[in-house]
């Protein structure tokens, strides 16, 4: 991925190119999908939020000018807002988890289905652990630590200073010292971004 690629594609999309927008989707769908999962603990809902995120991105294409080298940080913030507003808050999100029986089935092998169900259970526990954080710290943690957006990029898309982003993440980390796994990076399995 190059700076010009995303910017050029975004510019084309802003001009109405559905093809360019489709390329951006192909490029970032997986990362946004996983970001949404980390906010919801539901793979099925992450699919819906992924779709809503890109739909909103399309609607905002003429109003947004990419200042950074990648569209991904902005897409993450859009996704965060989509998730936040869909259930009003992450706390409420936890109360509204779709249960296993309502999950959209995955036409995979049974073991993969089981792994995804385990993911959800594990993510639910982790979200419960960060539930007590203020929303801005929680979302900064998800953005910068879990989804590995740089402080500078996060600051740009959040419209705050880089120092403020650092402060939010730092406060979140200090409050989660007993959950050290939460303040370290994700156990990646080939993130393609």
């Amino acid at each position, binding site marked *: 991925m190059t700076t010009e690629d995303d910017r050029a594609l975004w510019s084309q999309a802003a001009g109405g190119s559905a093809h360019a927008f489709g390329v951006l989707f192909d490029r970032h769908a997986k990362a946004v999908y996983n970001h949404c999962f980390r906010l919801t603990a539901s793979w099925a809902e992450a699919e819906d939020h992924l779709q809503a995120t890109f739909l909103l991105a399309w609607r905002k294409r003429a109003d947004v000018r990419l200042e950074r080298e990648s569209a991904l940080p902005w897409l993450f913030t859009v996704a965060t807002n989509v998730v936040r507003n869909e259930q009003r808050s992450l706390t409420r999100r936890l109360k509204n988890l779709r*249960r296993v029986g309502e999950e*959209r089935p995955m036409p995979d092998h049974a073991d993969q289905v089981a792994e995804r169900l385990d993911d959800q259970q594990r*993510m639910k526990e982790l979200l419960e652990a960060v539930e007590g954080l203020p929303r801005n710290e929680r979302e900064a943690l998800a953005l910068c630590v879990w989804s590995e957006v740089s402080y500078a990029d996060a600051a740009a898309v959040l419209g705050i200073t880089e120092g403020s982003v650092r402060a939010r993440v730092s406060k979140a980390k200090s409050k989660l010292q007993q959950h050290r796994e939460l303040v370290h990076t994700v156990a990646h399995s080939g993130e393609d971004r």
Partner: protein
Amino acid sequence: MTSMLPPTRDLPPGRRPQIRAELERAVTRRRFSKLTVPILAATAAVLAVVAGVVVLRPGPTDPTPLVQITSPAPASASVDFGVPPETVAAIEEGCAKGGGVAKATLRLLVLEEPQWALLYTDREGLNCRIGAGRDGYSVGMVKGDMGWLAGHFSVDEMSSTAGSDAPGAQHSEVGKRGFHQVGGRVSERVARVTLSADNFVVDAKVVNGTYAARIYYPSTWRFPENGPSPVVRAYDAAGNLLGSSDTSWQTCYENPRTGELVGSVRQHPTDQCQPALPWK
């Protein structure tokens, strides 16, 4: 808690092109008739945030006026839950408040500790842990048309709780057992429901069109990170298997009156769906 964040995963097979195609249709047509109501609601809300405008946000039930309303769940007054009516009323009020809904009807109450209850509205199923949470009621919720079942039963609650003495557990108490827990709705044909896990099989409590079951473990138990999920099976009065949670995803169901899918199984071609069963 000792688990790492789950690994990143790709979309399920077939979903990426499907979502891409839906987006392409939406952006090409420049309208959003194919999108779901929740997505529209989320989009509208996010637009407000992006614009930095404070708006009066719609209430939780506002986005669903186009959805067919089914007949309300029967009143719980005629059912004996083993507790006084005022306790039933308190549970219904507390659980509804905890779930953010106006009113919910108690359908099943488990008095064994930790106590929990299943309550339903037309559009929500609430599993409510009593004596937990800030207000004494900790609520999980499943959403959808509760008047229909994708098969002979639903799994509206499936969770696992580590014992209080398990490594990494954060319970303030000691000696509390761990457990798998399931609950949901059943059709009129269902006479028996079982919960299976780790070579254990227990019979669920089946009452009032609902079921609930737990498998208990020692207080040092924590559920396996990569173990198989518990399995729910439903049987009729003759002992015939009516459905199993580990295979139910293979079939899609639709509301025979409206054609709407029941149970969110969008991957399947809808012409292969079976009629959903009513739940009363």
